[in-house]
């Protein structure tokens, strides 16, 4: 995938069939060490072109943000999404 101005823009999601909705909440940082070996069901990453956003979640589990860096890519993503 490319941005409207031709730059690489990679979006990947792994997991079973796409869910109708993502988890409605985000895990509290203090809860992360309680289950450090937790395994996600879904994994979404956005690389425009560096990995600027990456999150994981599972059925009934809150979102875990692995990476997030603000940038022009956010507006580009909205534009590409129509």
């Amino acid at each position, binding site marked *: 995938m490319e941005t409207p101005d031709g730059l690489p823009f990679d979006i990947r999601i792994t997991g079973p069939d796409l869910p109708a909705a993502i988890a409605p909440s985000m895990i509290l940082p*203090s809860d992360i060490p309680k289950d450090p070996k937790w395994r996600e069901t879904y994994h979404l990453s956005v690389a425009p072109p560096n990995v600027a956003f990456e999150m994981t979640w599972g059925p009934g589990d809150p979102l875990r*943000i692995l990476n997030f860096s603000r940038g022009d890519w956010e507006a580009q993503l909205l534009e590409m999404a129509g």
Partner: protein
Amino acid sequence: MIGNSWIREQGMQDALLCASLRDRNMDDVPLWQRKFPARDAMMAHWDSLTPLRDGLVKPEPVDVTDPATMSAEIKRRGIELGGADVGMTALKPEFIELGVDLPHKNVIAVIVYEDYAQALVGPDEVDLEAMTAYAKCADISTELARYIREELGYPAIAHHNGSFQIQAIPVFQEVGFGELGRHGSLIHPELGANFRPGFITTDLPVAYDTPRNFGIQDYCMTCNLCRNNCPGDAIPDDHIVTDGVKRWLTDIEKCYPISRFRESYCHICVDVCPYIWKENGDDEKRSMFRDYMKIRKVEGYKTPRARTPIRHRNVQINGATGPSMPTPIRPIRRRR
């Protein structure tokens, strides 16, 4: 003011770190298990300052008629306490951790220089130097916050490794400390990337500093020394742009195996950055830089071609191949 900046959590609260450990069937970060009393004392020091971040404010604030004079006084005190540079700007939501309410108008940044000569001594020395600089930042920010509260009569909270809610790099840029480099650290014209930060958020009226541009981002487009010397291949070719600033986002999943999952500290991307001497023209640092490049070359990494003979200074080098650096280096310790 409510923050809107996602800041990576430190230690085991970092979801990516946990996932990386899990994928390697590891339970903890080996480096953090390692005993290093001198370094651990520095960490204990900034932890001891955490309860002093905030406190009572003198009831009658002094009348600040000239914010520029007040800024100069705060800077003078910051430097006197051991800071290498002090800058100030208006606090913005993007400078504050997501969801955190900081009821202040301004932010003061203080940085402490890390002695570049330690790069030529060894991983533990660099680690200790970094943690010592962090501890000094905690001292300075705590004392400046206390001074502002107790002697000037304005609310003020210190932010340092003991506890912080400030996103460092955007503040650094706004106060004119320098420009963001390819390695993901800010490059200061006098200090290179060899410094550590502390902050104070406050209502004290101060004059604001302004961003400075001296061509670093353009230089980083072609330099590539940090990229070529990263043992984890974590520094990218490409970049994103945020508010007009190029950002080469380090691939953290590649960085962690080097910077976290070994017993030694990795500071290579900073130590190979030529801005330790390039802008300030410091001949001694340039000589040290060249000595360090020799070490990197022996280790098999790409280095600049020497144009003039390397001058050896009074810097300890542990043998012909440098500071026992079989591959990556240096003990890492989490910022907390």
